[in-house]
C-alpha cells in the first residue's frame, strides 16, 4: 500500500571526493595597484559533480567581493584546476575564508546528493 517513495541522499558509491589546497593561503601583491592575489588548487574526484563555486568570506561568514576568472567553474571528473583570486587590499584584511562548494544538478531524482564544501583560511 505504501507508495514507492525512495529518497536517495548521496550520490553513487564510486569514490567521490573533493579537495582544495592550500589550507592556509596568503594574499600576495598583484601586478595591479591596490589589488592582492592568491592562487588555489582543486582536485575533483566526484564523478557526480562537474561544477564548483568559489566564495570569499569574513570571520562571520559574510561574503566579501572578489574577482576570479569564473566564480562557478567546470572541473571534469579526476581533473585538476588552478585558479587566481583577486581582492582589494582593503578587503584582504578582513577576508578569513575562501571556499569551494560543489554545485548539484537540480531535478535529478535518481541521484542522491551530498553537498561538499572545503574552506581554506587566511591567517
Amino acid at each position, binding site marked *: 500500500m505504501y507508495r514507492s517513495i525512495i529518497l536517495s541522499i548521496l550520490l553513487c558509491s564510486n569514490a567521490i571526493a573533493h579537495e582544495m589546497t592550500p589550507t592556509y593561503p596568503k594574499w600576495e601583491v598583484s601586478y595591479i595597484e591596490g589589488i592582492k592575489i592568491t592562487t588555489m588548487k582543486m582536485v575533483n574526484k566526484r564523478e557526480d559533480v562537474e561544477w564548483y563555486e568559489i566564495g570569499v568570506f569574513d570571520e562571520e561568514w559574510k561574503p566579501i567581493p572578489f574577482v576570479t576568472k569564473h566564480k562557478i567553474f567546470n572541473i571534469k571528473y579526476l581533473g585538476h584546476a588552478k585558479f587566481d583570486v583577486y581582492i582589494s587590499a582593503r578587503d584582504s584584511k578582513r577576508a578569513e575564508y575562501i571556499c569551494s562548494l560543489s554545485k548539484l544538478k537540480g531535478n535529478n531524482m535518481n541521484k542522491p546528493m551530498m553537498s561538499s564544501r572545503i*574552506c581554506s583560511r587566511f591567517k
Partner: protein
Amino acid sequence: MKKILTTLGLVVILAGCSLFSSKAEAVTNINGAVESRCTVETDTPGTYGNPNAYTLTTLPASSGQEPIVRFDVSLANAYFAQISYPTSFSSSPSLSDSVTWTGAVTVVQTSTSDMSGYQAASTTPTASMRQYALTIAGTTWFKSTSVATYGGGQNKAFPGGSYSAVVVAECIAQ
C-alpha cells in the same frame, strides 16, 4: 719490498677515493613535504525507507540506508569537519502540508583509536549540524541519520513520487 708495498697501498687508497667519488656523484636528493589537506568523500550512499505512509527514514530497521561521509586529513589540528542532516527536500512532489525533520550525526569509525573522543567533543553550530575538531591526522567516517514525517504532526500520507534531500559535508580550516 717496502717500496712496492708502499706503492701498492697508495694505489689502493687512490682506487678507494676514486670509487668513493663516483658513488657521491650518483646520490640524488628526494625532496617532499606533507601538505595540509582535507578530502571529503561519500563512503556510502543514503536511501530513505518508507515504513509507513507518513514517514521517510534512513534507519536501516525501516529499509533505509544511512549515508556515510568520509573525511581524510593529512595534518592534525588543521580542519573542522561539519556534517548536517537534511531539514528540507531539495526536490519533491508538491507538498501542501508541513514536514517535521529529526536526525543525528554520529561518528561511525575512525582510523585510529586516538579519535575515540570526537563524538563527545563535537559541537552544534546549528541544530541540524555537528562540528568536529579534527585534532588527529587520519580518517573519520560520519553517519547522517534523518527522519521526515509528513502532516504537521497529524501523520498524513506523503504524496507519491520521488523525493530528494542533501547532506552537507564541510571541511573548514581551523
